[in-house]
Structure formats: C-alpha cells, structure tokens
C-alpha cells in the first residue's frame, strides 16, 4: 500500500521549503562568513527538510526505512556517548537488531506487538543477555543505560512512524504523512520559537543547572507561537477541531520542552556540549530529535485515543 498523499501535505511541504528559503536569505544577510554556525545550521536544515520531504512523499516503506535509520543513528550516537562495558558487545548487537523488528511491526500494522515489544520483551531479554555475558560489576548501570536508550531512541521515536499507519479513511482529508508532518513541524518550530523568543526577551531562567539558555520568556513565547501554528495547521493536516488543536499544540510545547531538557541533563551528566557531529551547526542527531522523543509518543496517544 502506498502512501495516500493528500494535497494539503504537498502544500504545507511547499510552505516549509519557502520558509527555509526565506530563513536562508535572512541568515546570509546577518551571518556573512560562510562557515558561521548559523549558516551551517541552515545548511543542515536543507538536508533534513529534503530527506523528510522525500520520505513522506515517496512511499510508506520509504518513510518506515527513513525513520528506522533515524532510530539507528540516534541509538548509535547514544551508545557512543554513554559508557558501555566490553562484555556487553553482544547485548548491544541485540539492541540494534530491535530497530528493524520494531519498524517491521509497524509495517505490518501490528499495534499490539509494536506497543509491547520494547517495554516488555526487550526489557526482559536484555537482562537475560547481560546475565549470560556473566559480568555482574556494573550490571544495573549497563541494564538501565540500555533500556533508557532503547525506550528513547527506538520505542518513542517509532511512534512517529506508527502515525503513518493509523487506520485511514475515517477522515477523508487526513493522511498518515499529514499527521507526521504536523508533529514534526510543530515540534521543530516549537524548538526554534522557544530559542528565538528566549534570545530576544529571555530574562528568568527556568532550570539554570540543566540548561541555562531556557527562560520563562522563551518558553511562554514559544508555546504561544506553537499554539497559533497548531490552530492554523490543524484543519489542513489533522482531524482536530479548534479545541483539540490548541490542546495538541500545548502538549507539543510542554513535551518538547521537557524532551529537550532531559537530553541536556544527559549531556551535562556526561560532561559534553554536543551529542555528536552528524549535523553541522546543530551538533549530533540527538541534539535535533531530543524534543521528538517526548512529543512523538504523547501526540500519538492523544490522537489515537480521541480519533482512531
């Protein structure tokens, strides 16, 4: 079954490309040196937007493979950062193998397996594999580290992909890619808006020990922007009425904020600034998808509970 593309998806994607073009022109103005961080960041955005556009418009399989790759890169970056024991190499291999399986369950639309595979089966299997490796020194730490990584980078992110296969047809104008686009767009723009409002008006720090850049002004301004965008976009891409659009916007704003903070705390704990070097100007892939690991499952269940 190929993706049912609705014209709103193409229209909104067109809008995103236009917005990015505008952002590029502005950045060229304010950052004249070609290798400045701002310019690198915009360049990385072009690649992200191009890949997402391709994945969402080509076919459902392409989209699943794409999100599976994102999970793979995220888990790999996470496992590169956190300390792992050499005795657990085989367990790490099993952890990687859970990615194609998890996305396969989505491909065959097996919701029951998708929702318990990692929280139940991988949760039980990993300690078994660790026990067989035989090293009890640091056992809890190894198990906890791996569970956290799998839950965030594979389980949470894969909810984004399950939006693609939610039962179609009940709402003629709503498509899987439309819901994914709505979630991606609002999550990322919420990040950008919170950053911009914070830079412009930020005074009162919310969490100075975890992320000194987060301010009340940035959060409120960003959340308002996200609510507004949600109200504007919902009728194009989602089955939501105005009330639910505002609720979804609020959910994404708050969840995105805490997703971001949660990864900042992890980086602080490990004593690093950027999670990697995959996306010049942003850092690693975790720096970009941190908010998504929170917004994807919460938005998914909000939508599924109320509409599907």
């Amino acid at each position: 079954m190929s993706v049912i593309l609705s014209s709103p998806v193409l229209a909104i994607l067109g809008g995103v490309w236009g917005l990015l073009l505008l952002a590029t022109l502005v950045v060229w103005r304010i950052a004249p040196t070609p290798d400045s961080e701002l310019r690198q960041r915009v360049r990385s955005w072009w690649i992200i937007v191009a890949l997402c556009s391709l994945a969402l418009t080509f076919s459902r399989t392409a989209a699943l493979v794409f999100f599976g790759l994102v999970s793979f890169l995220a888990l790999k970056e996470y496992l590169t950062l956190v300390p792992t024991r050499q005795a657990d190499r085989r367990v790490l291999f099993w952890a990687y193998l859970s990615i194609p399986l998890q996305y396969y369950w989505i491909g065959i639309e097996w919701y029951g397996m998708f929702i318990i595979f990692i929280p139940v089966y991988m949760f039980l299997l990993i300690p078994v594999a660790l026990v067989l490796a035989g090293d009890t020194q640091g056992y809890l730490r190894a198990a906890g580290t791996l569970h956290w990584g799998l839950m965030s980078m594979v389980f949470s992110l894969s909810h984004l992909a399950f939006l693609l296969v939610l039962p179609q047809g009940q709402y003629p104008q709503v498509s899987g890619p439309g819901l994914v686009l709505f979630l991606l767009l609002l999550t990322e723009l919420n990040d950008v808006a919170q950053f911009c409002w914070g830079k412009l008006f930020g005074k009162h720090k919310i969490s100075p020990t975890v992320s000194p850049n987060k301010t009340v002004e940035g959060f409120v301004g960003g959340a308002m922007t996200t609510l507004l965008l949600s109200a504007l976009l919902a009728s194009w891409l989602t089955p939501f009425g105005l009330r639910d659009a505002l609720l979804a916007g609020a959910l994404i704003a708050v969840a995105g904020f805490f997703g971001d903070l949660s990864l900042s705390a992890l980086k602080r704990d490990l004593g690093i600034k950027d999670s990697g070097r995959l996306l010049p100007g942003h850092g690693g892939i975790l720096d970009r998808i941190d908010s998504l690991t929170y917004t994807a499952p919460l938005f998914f269940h909000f939508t599924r509970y109320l509409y599907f």
Partner: protein
Amino acid sequence: MWPIFLRFLFFLLLVKPFLLLAVGISVRGRQRLPHQGPALIVANHNSHLDALALAAILPLRLLPHTRPAASAEYFLQGRWRSWFARKVIGIIPVATKGGAAHAEVLHEVKEALLAGDLVIFFPEGTRGEPEALGQLKSGIVWLAETLPEVPIYPIRLRGLGKVLPKGAWLPVPFFCDAWVGERLRWEGDRQRFMTALVTRLTEPT
C-alpha cells in the same frame, strides 16, 4: 590485475558502506590527508579495522597504491588468509617476532615507499590495550631516518577498538573519529621526532 579489481569491489561493496555508513567515521583535518605517494600513514592501533578504515578514508584512486604493513605471523597463516591479505588487501608482511635488524624486517616497507606507495604503518607494532596508545617501537624511527624525504601523516583513531576489539569477531556500530594531524618529517633528532609523533597520536589537533 584481477586481485586489484577484487580490492576495489571489496572496498566499494563492503568496507566503505560498512565503515563509512553503518559505523560512521568522522574525519577531521581531511585537507591534510595525502593526495599522492610516497607517504607513510601512521596511526594508533586497536582493531583489525584500523588499516581498512585508513585505506577507506583516502581518495579511492589511491587504493591500488595503499598498502598496510601487517604482521607476517598472523596474516600469512593459512593459504586463503595469506592470499586474501597479500593479493586483495595488498599487505606488506612484516616479521614482528624474531628480533632481526630493522633493515631486514622493514625491507619490503622501504621498497614500497621507494616505489611511491602509501604505506599504512602502526608504530605500536600490535593492537594492545583498547583505546590506549602503547609504547611505540623503534621501527618508525628507522623508517623516518632511512627515508627522510618521505612525508609522514599521523592519524589518531578513536572508537574502532570499541567496534571490533582484539579477540572479538562480531563488529558492533559506534561512531568513530579520525584526526589527521600535521604532517611530520625527519629532522635528525630521534627524541624530538618521537615526542612529536606521540603528541599527534594522543591529542586531538
């Protein structure tokens, strides 16, 4: 000729996709990599993947002239391994055990450099402890002193010892780094040469 063809196939279909996409090696200082031979590419050694990784980050056109110096005792064991290592990978076997003079042990390496090849050389002599630089052996000093006109490219590798450590057979993906350091040349002083080399192989530049 066809082993060279196999080498291209091996790198294009297996080594490059695996190391550059599945594992992911981020190269810093790429502009300092050699464009032509002769060159002595020197790196810290933690994994069987090290030599393949160094060959994979060089421009593809240099592949026929890129030759890792590798332990004769290990790689010339068995007919098939020996054929694959010598013909397809193009290793230069070095008898690391036995205590013969440098001129004898490193004869083939010297000849390859004189012929304009790019030789991958691990001055620790062995893979050693994971992710730690062991004591450098004196072979590298002898090579630098004997062939002072050959430029030396120090490259610090990180992560491959986690991907495939000594004694493991199952590679597990982690992001890896390769720092290409400032080029070195022999300037006549043993101590200064060794210090400069160790600095480049331990500190990111």
